């Protein structure tokens, strides 16, 4: 099991809301390793993986942001055609539901990293291991 903690922050869909979160984290010396913003016309949910999850959560909560922490899987696959679809096939064959995924830049330019949010981490993780997919730990990501 190599679950990674992802922080989600609720942001209003107004100018400068996102910048405010970024500035706050930067000032607290927190580095963002992976980021995705899912938004509607009312609000956005900013999802991030950082080098110091506990500190980031505390910083955001102190600034009165609504914050939640979810365990996700992070994988690293070769940057070549067909690799992502292989991952999706593995998950599909185990009946794991994929909620969302997003890519982030890893340490090497020959590999690409993905955050994978599924409904069953344990099952998905076992299937990925069996399929030979490299999973990243929170520590791996922090050290990128």
């Amino acid at each position, binding site marked *: 099991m190599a679950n990674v903690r*992802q922080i*989600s922050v*609720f*942001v*209003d869909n107004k100018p400068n*809301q996102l910048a405010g979160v970024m500035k706050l984290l930067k000032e607290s010396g927190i580095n963002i390793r992976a980021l995705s913003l*899912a*938004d*509607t016309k*009312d*609000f956005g*949910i900013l*999802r991030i993986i950082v080098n110091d999850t506990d500190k980031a959560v505390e910083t955001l909560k102190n600034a*009165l*942001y*609504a*914050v*939640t922490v*979810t365990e996700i899987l992070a994988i690293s696959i070769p940057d070549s055609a067909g690799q992502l679809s292989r991952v999706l096939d593995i998950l599909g064959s185990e009946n794991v539901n994929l*909620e*969302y995924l997003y890519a982030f830049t890893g340490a090497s330019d020959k590999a690409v990293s993905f955050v994978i*949010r599924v409904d069953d981490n344990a099952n998905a993780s076992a299937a990925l291991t069996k399929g030979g997919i490299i999973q990243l730990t929170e520590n791996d990501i922090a050290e990128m």
Partner: protein
Amino acid sequence: MERYWNEEIECMPREEMKKLQDERLVAQVKHVYENVPYYRSLMDEKGVKPEDIKSTDDLHKLPFLTKADLRDAYPYGLLAKPLSDCVRIQSTSGTTGKRVVAFYTQHDIDLWEDCCARAITAAGGTNEDVCQVCYGYGLFTGGPGLNGGSHKVGCLTLPMSSGNTERQITFMRDLGATILCCTPSYAAYIGETLHDMGYTTDDIKLKAGIFGAEPWTEEMRRSIEKSLGIKAYDIYGLTETSGPGVSFECSEQTGMHINEDHFIPEIINPETGEVLPDGEVGELVFTSITKEAFPLLRYRTRDLCVLSRKKCSCGRTLIKMTKPMGRSDDMMIIRGVNVFPSQIETVLIEQGYSPNYLIEVDRVNNTDTLDISVEMNPDQLSDKVKDMQDQEKSLAIAIKTMLGINPKVHLVAPKSITRSEGKAVRVIDKRKLHD
């Protein structure tokens, strides 16, 4: 053990109270007829003479006064005493049209403060208490009224006025305030700030709050009681009749006892003006029977409520009024349906949301639109957008069930809706801009 400020009056047998009201009403009608030409001409038009009013049974014969009369008669038209006998004015916030200005003799001030003292005593206040008044001071009656009542009771009074919430909490803690007087929305904000500052109810000594001057719901009462660790009492009044203290709540918390030795209440059908029996919803009308300088007879408050003479467990015999269910000023007509902000507030609190919200009403292609911005509940944050959209939808359905019309609900970030330090602005009706 229930405590009273004026047991003789507050627990007076009904027949005696009626006798007292009869005498005071007869004298008051004579005083007004002789000294207020504006009201004299209303009585003459209706063909009513002071001699026709022999007791409270004749009250219905008198003409009504409305807010429009107060504006017409501004500033001195309803004054019943020479200015040399007056010592104070208070005024309504009057955002539209002319302000309403009310005049007081020293005697009027004494009676008003006495009414507030009854309210503070009913909330458990004694000369051992520290009473923090964060109603606005100045023209608004809230601060001066409760301040005077607190002095009468002998509480150590903190005349904070509203605003600077962190300082409010510092004083509350340093001086051990036990009673808080302010608007309910400000009380909710003080509670929130207290917790945001990292304190709990163990860090303060408050035991009671006296909240009024704006509509609030039972759900809001429970949430304020929890966040401040107090018992919250309602108080009612309006500048036109004196200020807060026209009626006040006792420990039963099931309505406010009206100070009937000063104010005679009636409930009327707002359309026809016909007097309705106790127990029916209608517009509250007050007749001041002791005020000298600004004695309004049959003043239409525009507040909708119910009167009850049911025996109260506190021992008071004073008639009770329900919390106003709405004010004709607050009532919005959206797609032909009457909507009160308090209904929306009730749903929000039931569903676990903060009572800070903003209603925007507009008209698009000749159809009214209702948009409600609500602060999302941080405990309900999900990383999945769909979960959050489902929260918006289920809240919209709950509001539709309550109102019968479909709103659009918009979740916004916690603490992003402006907090109020006085009366909260909860409704923006953009249709008025088009008319």
